[in-house]
């Protein structure tokens, strides 16, 4: 697991208070929202804010692209790497 991916997973767990979930429980290609991890729209906003603060990147809340970036750990880490 890359350092960035582990960092994102830890950020998700801490920001969203996911008790009972550990870094190992989150798969890189698993859906973060609805199915997979079961996060919802409020989580998306909270996570967006945390990523913005932690990695100092701008996120456009209304774009279709953003939705894709937030679909899994893989897509999120790719998004962060290219925008940092």
């Amino acid at each position, binding site marked *: 697991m890359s350092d960035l991916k582990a960092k994102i997973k830890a950020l998700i767990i801490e920001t969203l*208070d996911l008790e009972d979930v550990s870094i190992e429980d989150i798969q890189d290609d698993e859906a973060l929202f609805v199915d997979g991890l079961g996060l919802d729209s409020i989580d998306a906003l909270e996570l967006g*804010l945390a990523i*913005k*603060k932690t990695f100092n990147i701008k996120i456009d809340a209304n774009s279709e692209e953003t939705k894709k970036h937030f679909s899994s750990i893989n897509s999120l880490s790719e998004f962060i790497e290219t925008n940092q």
Partner: protein
Amino acid sequence: MLGVRKAVSDMDFCINIKKIVTIEAVNPVINLDGHQEKSFNKAELPKLDDLKPMQRRRLSPFAKLAMHCALEVTKNENQSLVSVFSSRHGDLHKTSTMLHDLALGEDISPTAFSLSVHNAVAGLFTIFTQNTQASTTVSAGKDTFMMALVEAYIRLKTGKHEQVLLVHSDQSLPSPYSQYADELQVDHAVALILTKDSNVGQRLSVKKYNNGSTATSTSDTSLSELPQALSFHRWFSDIKKTQELTMLDKQWKINRSNIE
């Protein structure tokens, strides 16, 4: 009675308490400003094992206290109850954090914001328990608990419901506000099931005198510094204490009689 003016009550009603559940912080701590308060640390808060982890995770300490009592008191009820929630300050720790972030020009937490309304706990409780009955949330300064009791009585009196759930919660003030404290600062929640049935539980007789009652009541003054809900609970749970309870400069007079 010649020459004696008898105070006429401005409000007068009876209501029965079927069940009561409370939680209260007991260890005194000194907060950052040197004020004494009784508050729960994170590990002492109710675990709420009956809820799913995904439901639990967004609950603030304030919500956990209220939710714990609400779930406990309704445990053996086989139908959803109409509810009255009350809090003098609401989730002021959360509000205070958001105001702090706003003042610094920072983004506020969407999760905190989404649950920052006064009836957030009522909303969460009714979603978790799939309760579609009506719900009211009350705030009335130092008089909040008694006004919630009045609201509960109105529900029973005017509606078709036999029982109503009353849930009150408050916490020690967050530090930016502690200088304004006008009562003992204690994290607490109290939940009651109130009923129309005069043959159940304990019967309360409640009178309100807007200008203060003329009764030279010998009510326990050690209770008067407590938040109203706790003062009520101390009096109510002490079975030896048969004398009436007066609150808010004797504006309220409460008596009770045991049924069982």
